[in-house]
């Protein structure tokens, strides 16, 4: 294997990994704090990707500006959805276990709803757009500029989020709510605001992941579930609720996928799933998860 191939595999692995990391961090906080295993996560990624495509091809707005519009939009949508649907569920559920089961099914319903809305608006045919496809040299290998920018944004956002959660007051509240939502509520943290906000943040991550994705790959309305599964595998890898686990796990999975993709590209998703299976047998609490 030539050194060029190695560099290509690693860098494209990191690029994919960046998107996976964002998606996974979003999913993990939605479960860790808001206690919703959001099976529709991937569909939000797809919608964000399509929105970016529409902005670029119809309105000539470049993706980075789209990201600035999409991010707060998704934050708002996520907040609203949790504040209305999931908060109602939480209040009506007879127990936390029942709430988790019900919210899982509701998220499943959202998967269906969002996917079909996307199908109605954009259809089922895959499409792509081209922006900043000019080349850039890294370690002697040529990469598209948009790929490099996507990686940079993903890493930047990931690090920024990590710092936010660990340093800011709101971040501390979020971490407290991850540890123990009930007690956090008793300590004066407004659960009715923090939980939907965190859910919205998760949706925001999905949104940015979708924008970055659209820059580098064609968009297909049916790829949502694939990304949900990838995010789920990363979250299971890194531990349900662990933000650093999601971040690092995303990059690991990106590289693994890139290596498998070199050998046989149609088996990437299957290899992730097989990895999940092995992990669940060997270390059910995840590599970095809390025990």
């Amino acid at each position, binding site marked *: 294997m030539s050194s060029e191939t190695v560099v290509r595999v690693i860098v494209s692995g990191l690029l994919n990994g960046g998107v996976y990391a964002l998606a996974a961090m979003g999913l993990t906080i939605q479960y860790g704090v808001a206690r919703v295993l959001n099976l529709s996560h991937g569909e939000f990624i797809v919608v964000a990707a399509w929105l970016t495509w529409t902005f670029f091809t119809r309105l000539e707005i470049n993706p980075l500006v789209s990201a600035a519009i999409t991010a707060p939009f998704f934050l708002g949508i996520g907040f609203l959805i949790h504040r209305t649907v999931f908060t109602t569920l939480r209040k009506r559920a007879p127990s936390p*276990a029942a709430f988790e089961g019900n919210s*899982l099914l509701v998220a499943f*319903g959202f998967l269906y709803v969002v996917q079909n809305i996307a199908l109605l608006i954009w259809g089922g045919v895959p499409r792509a757009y081209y922006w900043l496809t000019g080349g850039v040299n890294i370690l002697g290998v040529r990469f598209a500029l948009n790929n490099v920018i996507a990686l940079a944004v993903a890493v930047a956002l990931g690090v920024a989020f990590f710092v936010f959660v660990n340093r800011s007051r709101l971040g501390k509240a979020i971490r407290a709510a991850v540890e123990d939502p009930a007690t956090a509520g008793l300590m004066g943290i407004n659960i009715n605001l923090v939980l939907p906000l965190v859910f919205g943040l998760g949706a925001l991550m999905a949104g940015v992941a979708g924008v970055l994705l659209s820059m580098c790959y064609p968009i297909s309305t049916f790829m949502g579930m694939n990304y949900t599964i990838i995010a789920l595998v990363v979250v299971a890898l890194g531990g349900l609720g662990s933000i650093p686990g999601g971040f690092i796990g995303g990059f690991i999975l990106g590289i693994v996928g890139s290596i498998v993709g070199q050998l046989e590209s149609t088996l990437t998703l299957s290899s992730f799933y097989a990895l999940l299976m092995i992990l669940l047998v060997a270390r059910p609490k995840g590599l970095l998860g809390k025990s």
Partner: protein
Amino acid sequence: MDISKFTSRKFLSVAGFILAILAFLAIFPLYGSNSEVGVGVIILMYVILTVSWVMFSGSTGYMSLAVAGFFGIGQYVAAFLYPRDPGPLLPLPAVIIAGGLASFVFALVVGLVTLRLKGMYFAIFTFGFAVFLGSIMQYYELQIRGRRGINVFPISNQTAFYILIVVVVLTLLTAYLIRRSRLGLAMQSIGENEDAAAHMGVNTTMVKVMTFAISAFFMGVVGAIMAPKWQSVDYSSAFLLLYSFMPVLMAIFGGMRELYGPVIGAVIFAYTERTLRLQFPYYYMLAFGIALILIIIYLPGGLTGLVPTLKDKLGGVIARLRKGGQ
């Protein structure tokens, strides 16, 4: 044995009702048009998938999203053992049982890996299961076989219909017997409080795995019947998300407390799906998704969950009428 149980009015009227339905089903294919029988086949298919799903997820509370996976496995088993070219390798009944057994074995493996862990890992795993199988079969069909899809030796709508009636009866019978057995008691206790159940001697992992595998058996069986009826199988249509979504919707809508709940839910939604899909393709799916969300929030007990409430209200009205009449 206490004979009086079998001669009570309630038992006789329920038995009579069931026999009447069976008689209707038996005669239906002889008088209905082929497309009507085709709709009937789909309805029966969904009844089996939904009742099988409830067998496990209804009492344990572990939500399996893998119906499409086990359904697809049954289809592929039929495709391999009952192909159009060079012709069936085994007689149809053997193929059908093989489809069920294959799903049974897969479910044992999935169950043993995931049911020892928290419910969320189970949900995650079952969610990806059908997609995983689909992409494996995609690799197999496109890279190894070189072409998409496998042609299956055909059976007529009528044949499928009659076979499915038998399977529906067997599925319902199995579900009924399990509910009333100690296995059913164990599952209920797991659904109520898994920790306590384990401490009272219930081998929770084995109970969950066994029931999960039994429910998968029936999903595989119906898959093995649908493949010849559809005459072909391919990686994208065998494992459609639809087949995981619809049984959940139907079961929750119909209500899972009583066995007839899922049956009612399946009949209503299967019929609606068939009629709407041609006229409003993506809109009806959207409506179903919204329906699922609304039902879970506002009617978690489903349609049959309303029965006690209705009985109370109706009883109250009748009592008031009686009093008024005096």
